[in-house]
């Protein structure tokens, strides 16, 4: 691809990008969120039209107007969010849209033969007769990969494939990728994780702000070199922790059991506590009961049994607004779904839940000046880069959206902050900034419950780490534990 240029209203997403991918290699495309990696690949895959530039495959210039063209040219893409039909089996999903058929009737024997042939050829096994929704994430992803391969993909684009995987599943994925490239498939691996790109790729192209910054052989690259190229400045991944002197207990959970829709006990007899001036990391692979636990704390879900005590007050039966009034801040796990209203402006978002407070309203009417002042304070105090406080949340980058949420919660100086996946999907600089906010909240003697599936984050920030596995807390680690110790607990291995 050469000279690729693409602008969206108000932004130049790609500014003359040239990249080259060799046959049979794993090419890492590294960059922060918003660097243009996904846009570039979407152009290659025909999802966007380019403004300028050209694409050649095997030396021949090609036109790609839509994803159909791209598939015809042997391209395949696996997106971050899967596109499987939940109630079809893996097999049905793989052949969907390319079903071998005779007189309009699906030829299942032929389909099975083709899929089996493919899986044994590339060595990717998937339980074919399970419904897609029942498959673990790693297998869902494999199904997506097989789907692309069945359509004759020779160049496979993987967009942040490990974002949803456990460390173990990531390892599996890497093994699959090696097997694929050994068979002649070319893989383009989009990521912003440095360690991954070093362990799986042959060459790395680093993008920043719509431009290619550098291309290098992986063997010549180090974490530092990559990190600097990616963020464009030295990143210091060290936070200043005040001496660990936890104060009184703010949150105390005893024998909590919470049920979920699908499995009976999402949280099973959990006990934990958070004190002033400490960050308690609750680590666990997603889906082990974190969401339900946090919802129970926030009054969004009623516990079956057990006690949740906030600052000495039993809150099991209190409403969310009563709990928030006990000086609790909550950074929910999904920015767009639970945190911000995307069609609201920044100033509308920062008063969410406080519109009735005398701080912002007089006799039921919002005082615009006060709302705007508060929004400006959040924007400036928490480094949100936005054209103004009337900008819609939708038009902010993920990092800035998250800063608005964290800012909203911290601006009220809560005694307890429950931060659920606060840096998921954020670029390096925003991640670091959000993490530093959590650390300074801790240093300011607030209690922080950090629920995260980013294990580096948990290890870096937490004073104590609790590991949640299948709804139970199966272990506690102190600061300074290694990722190995954590990894074992995460996988349910105790001792």
């Amino acid at each position: 691809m050469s000279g690729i240029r693409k602008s969206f209203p108000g932004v130049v997403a790609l500014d003359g990008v040239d990249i080259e991918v060799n046959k049979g290699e794993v090419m890492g495309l590294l960059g922060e969120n918003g660097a243009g990696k996904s846009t570039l690949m979407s152009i290659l895959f025909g999802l966007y039209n380019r403004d300028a530039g050209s694409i050649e495959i095997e030396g021949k210039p090609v036109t790609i107007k839509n994803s159909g063209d791209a598939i015809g040219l042997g391209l395949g893409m696996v997106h971050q969010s899967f596109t499987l039909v939940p109630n079809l089996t893996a097999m049905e999903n793989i052949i969907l849209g390319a079903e071998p058929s005779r007189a309009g009737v699906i030829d299942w024997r032929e389909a099975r033969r083709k899929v089996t042939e493919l899986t044994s050829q590339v060595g990717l096994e998937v339980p074919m007769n399970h419904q897609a929704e029942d498959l673990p994430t790693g297998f869902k992803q494999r199904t997506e990969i097989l789907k692309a391969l069945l359509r004759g993909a020779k160049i496979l684009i993987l967009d942040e494939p490990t974002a949803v995987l456990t460390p173990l599943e990531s390892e599996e994925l890497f093994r699959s990728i090696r097997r694929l490239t050994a068979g002649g498939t070319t893989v383009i691996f989009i990521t912003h994780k440095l360690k991954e790109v070093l362990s799986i790729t042959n060459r790395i192209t680093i993008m920043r702000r719509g431009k290619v910054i550098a291309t290098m052989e992986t063997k010549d690259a180090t974490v530092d070199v990559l990190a600097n190229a990616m963020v464009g400045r030295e990143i210091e991944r060290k936070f200043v922790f005040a001496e660990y002197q936890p104060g009184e207990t703010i949150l105390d959970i005893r024998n909590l059991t919470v049920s979920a829709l699908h499995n009976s006990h999402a949280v099973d007899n959990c006990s934990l506590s958070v004190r002033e001036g400490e960050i308690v990391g609750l680590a666990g692979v997603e889906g082990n009961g974190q969401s339900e636990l946090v919802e129970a704390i926030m009054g969004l879900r009623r516990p079956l049994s057990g006690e949740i005590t906030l600052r000495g007050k039993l809150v099991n039966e209190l409403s969310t607004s009563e709990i928030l009034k006990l000086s609790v801040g909550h950074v929910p796990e999904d920015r767009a779904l639970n945190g911000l209203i995307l069609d609201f402006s920044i100033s509308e978002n920062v008063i969410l839940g406080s519109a009735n407070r005398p701080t912002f309203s007089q006799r039921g009417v919002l005082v615009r000046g006060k709302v705007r002042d508060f929004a400006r304070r959040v924007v400036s105090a928490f480094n949100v880069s936005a054209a103004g406080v009337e900008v819609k949340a939708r038009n902010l980058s993920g990092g800035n959206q998250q800063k608005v949420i964290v800012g909203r919660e911290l601006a009220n100086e809560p005694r307890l902050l429950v931060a659920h996946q606060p840096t998921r999907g954020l670029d390096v600089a925003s991640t670091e900034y959000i993490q530093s906010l959590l650390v300074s909240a801790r240093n300011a003697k607030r209690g922080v419950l950090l629920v995260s599936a980013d294990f580096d984050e948990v290890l870096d920030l937490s004073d104590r780490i609790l590991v949640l596995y299948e709804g139970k807390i199966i272990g506690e680690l102190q600061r300074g534990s290694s990722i190995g110790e954590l990894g074992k607990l995460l996988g349910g291995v105790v001792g």
Partner: protein
Amino acid sequence: MVRVLRGVVPSIVALLLGLLAGSVLMWAFGLNPFNVFYALFDGALGTRYGQSTVLTYMSSYILLALAFLIPGKAGIWNVGGQGQVFIGGITAALVVVFIPMPIILWPLVAVIAACITGAGLAAVSGILEAYRNASAIVTTIMLNYVAQPFSSLLLYYVIVERVPTVAQNQYVVFPSAATLPAIPFFNASIMFIIAILVAIGAKYFLQRTSLGYNIRAVGMGPKQAESKGINPKTIKVIAMLIGGALAGLAGAGDVLSAGHGCYLVACYQDNFAAGWFGGEGFAGIAVALVAANDPIGAIFSGIFFSILAAGTASVGQNIYVVWAMQGIIIVFMAAPYLSTKVLNLGGKKRWT
């Protein structure tokens, strides 16, 4: 300004496309579109009677559009404007018949009572949706079928018995002290002014008050609102109460507008404006959709719909073609995406 224009353009485009399609339809039936349009607009705007009719329709259309769009902002569908208008109307009539009061107070109390019963009916659906998970779309429609005959029963067995009627029982005649004041020169009450003021008030309410803000927050992000301690259930019920009250107000307006000698019988017998989407309550939804759910927009689309409705009387036997055309316009207007796509205007989805 640009933002305002961007909001209005798709509606204008839809209107023109609808008129064009209507013209083609007329032409296909061997009619001269210009003659039909002339008759239509002349009927609505060219005579004092037509103008009065426009003003009368307008008050109902605007209020019923608000009755739909305010709950809509909270994410709940009030398709029960029809039933709420009937309950409100009959409540106002009952107050007038049974509780004589001094001038001014009389219509005022009747109007307030109508708002309360309208709100009450809407609240039933609001509560069922919020706390019992029964879609308000379904329950409001069902309650229309309860409210309408119930009102007719009261009308024929309670009111007509006690109040003089004229023109072969077409109209009930209420004492003029109980009716809303008429405006000079026109055969219409001040109701349309009230409707416009309510629409402006609704805009202010939604944009500037805490409750209005919470309503919008719940509509646009129920999960986000809930996780910040706003109870979406309560807010939805409140929004339905407001919507129902406005529909009830429209009903009181129909009944107490002195200018029209109290529609009552005509209203319930002929369904107010028979053939027009099966009633004004449903017309309100169309008015709101065309207004892109904006209260100020509802004033203008209310006027437009009133002109169409008032003008149909004067197009003679071509009335069915005009109705068809009105339908087409609504389809175009309610589907802004379609019409902007046609002209590639890059309009945005307007439903919020």
